[in-house]
């Protein structure tokens, strides 16, 4: 993963720092509560939400079961439509392919659409090492990049920054990357957005190479889909001559029709909108419209290891909506940085240790960064049973580490951290009381992991009732 994440302290220590940062906590609380309330309203508009959620789950499970077949079909369709498909087994290989493609164009600058996959592989750093500058063009990613910072949320990566901080970042740093911020820049969001517009437009208009990820890839047609709000995605996808998309193999869906499910569930789950402002769909290249060259890099980087785990593979259904972050009492207090990877929150707690393995202290501590309250499962539009996977991973960690082993210590410290933080624990207990029968027999704490493998299956009905009554 990205070099930026090496040397991260394990979850509890990183979280401890976040808990004592009052600005960060206030920002996070405001953000998660606002998005959560809006999301519930947007979801309630669709009377068939549970059916859409179930269909989403089934489509993804079916795809994963036959992923080899669908990837081959996808490759054929993209090639047929004028694109070129590359396969990358790991981050190093993916970065190598991208760097070579960029060099072949003779360019030393690229514009980028926000993409978790390219963050995961540390593409910007790898390109920089080859003398290529990658410009992030999503407003939040620009804020993160100018601040030499790391994203803290999947959807709103700069949510840990407030307007005053952003203003001084823009004033101090923009000039070093291109067009400087206007004199007399205020900290009003409109002013800040305008500064970003002017700064980036200059780059869009001269960019010859664009780099993106994708939300979906349709095997049947070879179509890629990018969902966004700002229009920076449209700029990167259509103005350059060369477009390079780096996409995790699990983003595949079999048919064009399958999009009808996810284009309904993704926007409502993530930004709480009926539909996000812009959705771009493209298939290979089109004469006289958009890039002349299109390269798709299919990225494994640990995904096939996740696929091999019967319980854990459901994490590959994730459509990165971030709904689980916004309902998580631990994320709300700890913030995204504490998770030590590009995937924060409940999904990060199960995906990261599976993608990277649980050899390091931070990765081994992640499955303990949860109260097991189940709210993440309830909101997940593809019904990933995150608590179940957390318990499964705790069992795995327990097996690998004997007493005194460092990962075990880190893991226990994480669960201890949850217990020591009153708000987090209160949330756990409130839920536990209301959902008797579905929670672990003992709260996560010292020794709990040894019994966690024998926990009964978690029935969801009682929790759902509680959630219906108590959510706002």
């Amino acid at each position, binding site marked *: 993963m990205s070099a930026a994440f090496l040397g991260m302290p394990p979850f509890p220590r990183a979280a401890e720092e976040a808990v004592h940062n009052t600005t960060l906590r206030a920002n996070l609380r405001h953000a998660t509560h*606002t998005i959560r309330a809006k999301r519930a309203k947007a979801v309630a508009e669709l009377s068939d939400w549970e*059916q859409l959620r179930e269909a989403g789950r089934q489509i993804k499970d079916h795809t994963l079961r036959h992923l080899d077949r669908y990837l081959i079909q996808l490759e054929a369709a993209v090639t047929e439509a004028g694109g070129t498909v*590359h396969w990358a*087994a790991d981050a190093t290989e993916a970065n190598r392919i991208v760097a070579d493609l960029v060099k072949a164009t003779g360019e030393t600058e690229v514009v980028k659409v926000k993409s978790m996959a390219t963050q995961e592989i540390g593409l910007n750093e790898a390109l920089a090492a080859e003398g290529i500058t990658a410009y992030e063009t999503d407003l939040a990613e620009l804020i993160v990049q100018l601040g030499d910072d790391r994203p803290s949320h999947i959807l709103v990566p700069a949510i840990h920054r407030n307007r005053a901080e952003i203003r001084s970042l823009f004033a101090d740093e923009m000039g070093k990357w291109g067009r400087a911020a206007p004199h007399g820049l205020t900290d009003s969001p409109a002013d800040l957005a305008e500064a970003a*517009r002017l700064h980036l437009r200059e780059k869009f208009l001269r960019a010859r190479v664009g780099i993106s990820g994708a939300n979906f890839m349709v095997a049947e*047609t070879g179509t890629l889909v990018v969902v966004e709000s700002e229009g920076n995605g449209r700029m990167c996808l259509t103005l350059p001559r060369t477009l390079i998309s780096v996409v995790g193999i699990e983003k595949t869906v079999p048919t064009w*029709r399958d999009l009808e499910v996810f284009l309904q569930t993704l926007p409502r789950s993530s930004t709480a909108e009926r539909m996000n402002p812009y959705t771009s769909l493209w*298939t290979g290249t089109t004469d006289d419209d958009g890039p002349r060259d299109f390269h798709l890099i299919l990225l494994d980087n640990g995904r096939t290891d996740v*696929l091999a785990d019967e319980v854990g593979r459901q994490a590959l259904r994730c459509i990165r909506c971030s709904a689980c972050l916004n309902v998580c009492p631990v994320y709300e207090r700890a913030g995204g940085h504490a998770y030590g990877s590009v995937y924060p929150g409940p999904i990060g707690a199960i995906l990261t240790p599976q993608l990277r393995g649980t050899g390091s202290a931070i990765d081994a501590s992640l499955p303990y960064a949860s109260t097991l309250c189940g709210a993440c499962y309830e909101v997940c539009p593809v019904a990933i049973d995150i608590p179940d996977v957390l318990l499964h991973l705790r069992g795995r960690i327990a097996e690998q580490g004997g007493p005194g082993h460092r990962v075990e210590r880190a893991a226990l410290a994480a669960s201890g951290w949850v217990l020591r933080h009153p708000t987090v624990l209160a949330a756990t207990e409130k839920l536990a009381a209301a959902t008797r029968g579905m929670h672990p027999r003992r709260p996560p704490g010292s020794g709990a992991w040894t019994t966690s493998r024998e926990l009964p299956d978690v029935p969801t009905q009682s929790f759902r009732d509680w959630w219906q009554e108590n959510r706002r």
Partner: protein
Amino acid sequence: MTDTSRERILSRIRAAVDRAQDVPPPERDYLITHTSDDPIQNAELLQRNLSDYRAVVHRVTPTGLPGLIAERLAAHRARSIVVPDAVPDSWLSACAIARHRDEGPLTPAVLDTVDAVLTGCALAIAETGTIVLDGGPDQGRRALTLIPDLHICVVRAPAQIVSSVPQALPLLSPSAPLTWISGPSATSDIELDRVEGVHGPRRLEVILLDGVA
């Protein structure tokens, strides 16, 4: 190197799912639409949902169209406009604005000096408040509707309006590049305050052209 990686990834996948049970394709018992298919109601719903995301929506009959377009361009002080080839000349017959055709074609730098773009659309989705462009001759290349700051889009009502996303997809061809637009460019990245117009057009005006089949 890539070829071996291809084989490696595929064989890892096969090994990973080899013993897993077959998983059949999904049952689709969700709804195809959440609204009535009544065209009048659909047009109203489209108008409401587009307005909700701060697009400005107008309704007009064909005779009123040129006057309305002239009035909207004047309201935004637009001095130049780019028009895809198949937009009828009559739509701009009531204004004397500088008109570009996409000849050459126009470079991004030239488009950046143009104030507005006027297009039709492939279809519109009422439930989500979305207009869909497929690069058809009355919509032009994607860059045309991306760079100028004002986008005026004419939707023929009721003919081009469907209720829902599941109704829209079968009418669209994946071989054309598609852009779905639901309100103007927006961001909520700064303290979740919604700001319109970061990179795409800052203003989206949708004209429902009534009574056109």
